């Protein structure tokens, strides 16, 4: 099995709902975002490229790409980040992480891994999201878990469920009949930084 995402950029409206859903489900600390909506356009977020009326803009939601050939797992000196062969999910074990940040340098998709530079704080003084969501620790690296706690219960990742434009799909890329496999069979797709050879499990169509 190799779970992955398909993101339909024609449908994505750049509303950041998936990012917020992720933040809530995983009880992410205040300044931490595992899923970020990047703008392929002008110099700042939500700004298109070009001059009116000839402008272009596209949204690129980016979370951990759960690569088939991950750069991060190879370099971790203690094996705190590893690929689950069962599901294809790349995990990050906060209890084991020594905070060397080797994985952050190795990962070509900069920004999907975040380090808790500060003591994790939350606006609300109670935990929110899934009861089995991961803990957050100061001075360790964390990232998208593909909501492995939900997947284990047979549920979809929170970002997929929350997307109001139905632009996010999730499923087993190894199963030719799965929704994700069917979409990438029918439509042209791209993968981020495909020439790095990491074989990311996130496909962008549109």
């Amino acid at each position, binding site marked *: 099995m190799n779970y992955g995402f398909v993101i339909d950029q024609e449908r994505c409206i750049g509303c950041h709902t998936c990012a917020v859903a992720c933040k809530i489900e995983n009880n992410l600390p205040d300044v931490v975002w595992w899923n970020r909506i990047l703008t392929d356009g002008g110099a700042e977020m939500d700004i298109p490229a070009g001059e009116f009326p000839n402008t272009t803009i596209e949204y690129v939601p980016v979370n951990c790409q759960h690569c088939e050939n991950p750069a991060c797992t190879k*370099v971790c000196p203690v094996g705190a980040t590893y690929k689950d062969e069962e599901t294809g999910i790349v995990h990050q074990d906060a209890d084991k992480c020594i905070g060397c940040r080797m994985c952050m340098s190795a990962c070509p998709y900069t920004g999907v891994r975040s*380090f808790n530079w500060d003591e994790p704080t939350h606006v609300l003084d109670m935990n929110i999201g899934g009861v089995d969501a991961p803990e957050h620790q100061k001075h360790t690296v964390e990232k998208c878990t593909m909501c492995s706690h939900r997947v284990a219960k047979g549920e979809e990742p929170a970002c997929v469920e929350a997307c109001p434009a139905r632009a996010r799909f999730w499923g087993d890329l190894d199963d030719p009949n799965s929704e994700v496999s069917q979409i990438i069979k029918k439509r042209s797709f791209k993968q981020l930084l495909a020439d790095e050879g990491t074989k990311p499990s996130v496909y962008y169509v549109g």
Partner: protein
Amino acid sequence: MTDMTSAAAAAPINVSQNTEQQGKKASASWKSTGLTVGIIVCGILTIAGIALWAMQLSGSMIQTGMRNLDSWGLYITFFMFFVGLSAGGLIISSVPKAFGIKGFGGISKVAIMSSIACTIAAIGFVVVDLGQPTRIWELFVFSNIGSPLMWDIIVLGTYLILSCFYLWAQMAHERGRVSDKALRVLSVIALLCAVMVHSVTAWIFGLQQGREMWHTALLGPWFVSSALVCGTALVICVVEALRKVGYLSLDQAYIVKLAKLLGAFVCVDLYFFACDLLTEGFPGAHGADVVSMLVSGQLAPFFWIEVVGCAVCAVICFTPKLRTNPLIVIASLLAIVGILCKRIQLLVGGFQLPNLDYVGALSPQTITNWEAGWTDAYAGMVYWPTPLEFGVMLGVVALAGLVFLLGIKFLALQPGDKIQAESEK
């Protein structure tokens, strides 16, 4: 400057030798007010550094300039730099013995001592960079042997132990306890280990396909050449300083020989730099961004200080008229500063060019200058250290100074009788 009477107390092993040859050669325990002051200053700075490190851990690393998009900084820069500095000593000391050629007079032991001090600092810089130093034991329990960082930890540890053993072996050899052959075998092993330590440090960066500036096969050999440059330069500075204060005497011919060697190393290093720039820039693809960033972009000051400094160093080293002691020291300092600039370019350059050239929301943990917005965060240098980082850095450097000065004070690092006699001829 030397005080013979204290020898007995500090280094009992050398008592018989020293009492026999009093006045002829310096004693094992060498005393001077300057040395004591140096040890005290280094000690205080080391303690201050440890206090600041404790602040960094108990407060948090948000006090550093490092952020998610530029996740390594001053500490890893100086880690690279000190691994490089540690080279010279061991290589200068082991090459002549390994290949059975004439050496550089009696500086061998002082040179190894500088290696030991620099290796300790290099390890120190990795430790202060860790977010969870209390989990360091995991490195030995859960070792992922495939990680270049793990290779480095293994090789660096071996290198430190080997350097200490090598120093001991040379001292024992002078007392006739270690045979010529054993020392020669040990020299070969030490030399191989020195080359490995630089290559492996390069691979921490060079094996990462995601960073345009780091991902080159040249990085390994280039780290070795840079290490030879700043290592040799450091040995020259140290030896000149020790001559000046009367710790050891050394024939000028040896200094000239070292200077010529430094000149050759600097040229090789610059040649590698030129090769790399050409290969990056020629296709005019992504690599061209690296070239323009260095030559005229955000990192230009460091680039030009390195290139000009190393070129001036080579001119001084190769022009017989310019090879006076003060100028040789200046040339060495230029080489050391040049290589430090190279380390800065390499580290910051790895983060300066974003892989995903898309903009997104910024948080205080995204990037150093997050308040300036995406474009301006990359307009200048993407990373700059905070005063806390400079303080911790100074503490680790002081630790290296402390180790070296204690070595000078308590170990018999002066040339042995045989070499001394040779050098006096």
